[in-house]
């Protein structure tokens, strides 16, 4: 394998954390000690177990409504990962298709698609998300839609770039001469070769989606409460920073660890599959 030792170690750590995360998200109801939305005001603002006042009953403490932080963290993983996976699948397939079409078919279609991509890039993402949330209401579904709207352009641009490179290859010319239809060439010959780059991009985008989604929830225009979400948790804990630091710090650390893992994996994949690309 062409990976350095350091990269091998970090990517395995990253992969391990991701697997733990995915399993946590999948088996949340079995793993979480409490219901994430059930809180008793008697137990509110309990600190984590290693601090004075904390107990083993609530390992990571409770929030202002007495809800168990650990459980909310676990369910929050579910929210974040679900949004990320769906948004990336949607925007990835849509963006890549447009990108490959633009790159292969050239001409007017290419110009139009690239103009739209430019517009998508120059529109400030977070403002679009906020406007969308206000106009169409903030819901799980809408957040996925708006995040997909933000992400697709990067796939299109990348797919187009790769397609332009592959287009000139001999096997494509052979297929054209043999009379294979344009659609089939794009699907069977170009797509598989573009796929590796796109997968690397997708891995690195998970981190971006999680941060974007939590930022939106933090601002109040993301996943609506009481659905547990790391961004919302950070926002709720903001006014308690001086007294109950764990409310904001714990979900924040969760985000950092998650994004870090996906970035490590993405970096390792980049090194493995595209050794000449810049990180």
């Amino acid at each position, binding site marked *: 394998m062409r990976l350095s030792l350091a990269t091998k170690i970090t990517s395995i750590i990253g992969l391990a954390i991701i697997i733990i995360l995915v399993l946590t998200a999948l088996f949340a109801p079995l793993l979480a000690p409490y219901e994430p939305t059930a809180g008793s005001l008697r137990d509110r603002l309990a600190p984590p177990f290693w601090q004075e006042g904390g107990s083993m009953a609530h390992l990571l403490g409770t929030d202002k409504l007495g809800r168990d932080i650990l459980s909310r963290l676990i369910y929050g993983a579910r929210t974040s990962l679900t949004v990320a996976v769906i948004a990336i699948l949607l925007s990835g397939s849509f963006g890549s298709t447009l990108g490959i079409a633009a790159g292969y078919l050239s001409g007017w279609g290419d110009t139009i698609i690239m*103009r739209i991509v430019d517009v998508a890039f*120059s529109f400030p993402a977070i403002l679009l998300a906020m*406007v969308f949330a206000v*106009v169409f209401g903030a819901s799980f579904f809408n957040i996925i839609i708006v995040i997909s709207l933000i992400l697709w352009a990067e796939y299109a641009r990348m797919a187009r770039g790769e397609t332009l490179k592959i287009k000139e290859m001999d096997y494509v010319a052979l297929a054209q001469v043999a009379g294979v239809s344009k659609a089939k060439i794009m699907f069977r010959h170009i797509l598989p070769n573009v796929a590796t780059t796109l997968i690397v991009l997708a891995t690195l985008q998970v981190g971006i989606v999680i941060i974007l989604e939590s930022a939106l929830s*933090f601002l109040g*225009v993301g996943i609506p409460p009481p659905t547990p979400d790391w*961004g919302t948790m950070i926002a709720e804990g903001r006014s308690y920073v*001086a007294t109950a630091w764990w409310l*904001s710090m714990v979900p924040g650390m969760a985000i950092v660890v998650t994004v870090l893992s996906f970035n490590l994996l993405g970096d390792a994949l980049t090194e493995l599959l595209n050794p000449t690309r810049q*990180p």
Partner: protein
Amino acid sequence: MQRYIIRRFPQAIVTLFLVSLIVFILGRLTGDPVALLLSETATQEDKLLLTKQLGLDKPLPEQYAIFLRNAIQGNLGRSVRGERAPALELVFERLPASIKLAGLSVLVSLLVGLPLGVITAVTKGSFVDAITRVIALLGQAAPVFWLGIAAIYLFSVKLGWLPTSGYGTPAQYVLPVFSMSCFMVAAFLRLTRAGMLESLDSEYIKLARIKGLPETKVVWKHALRNSLIPVLTYMGTIFGRLIAGAVVIETIFAWPGIGRLAFDAVLSRDYPVLQAVILVIATLFLVISLVVDVLYAYIDPRIRYS
């Protein structure tokens, strides 16, 4: 070179038009502005009158044309909140604060990230290299808004060194700029490092060494220059993240910038202000892209002839 610039210009204009179109459409989707502006006791007559006054009874394409014409003259409507100040004026009032924040953050990130990138490339494989890169990775993984809160917790609440929020004194710049800079420092470091590692291996660097040039000159003058292009590319793409960062940082630190203006406008459905913010930001972005592209062509002659 001129031809390259002339080619890029119309592209930017077209993009700006499309952005304005989207802004216009979104505006019309947010609901009936007449209902927003008038009190609930207004009669049907009053509503009709206002609708006619605002030109809302005209067909949509005509409304868009009027909107464009006004926009070019600098009239983007008035805020629906408070003193109903002209929207564009409000944006320009708040713009300097955001530019100071973003500009300073980029500058600080460059000043910290580039040299660190060079150092880690030169000392590749060492302990310093490893530690620095881990810290950089963490910097990229931490969401900006959380960094802000964590920074407040650590430096304001626990250590009491710095103020928690506000705008004006140099001390109040420290935490916001720090929070904004982290992800950029990390990115600049990694890009510079990658570029340096490539350059340091190349033939012309070997030649420079054989010539007897001092190592510091070889590294910092010759190798660094060629690592700057990816950095420049990256700088052209972070504008969106800077805006997003500005929105959250300004909210956390009570910074009077356009990020917070936009956020307040969204929440209070102050559509004219929101439109103004989006258009100004999009214009800024296009100008910056243009500048970056021209700088590109200036630095790398190969691009001019493509």
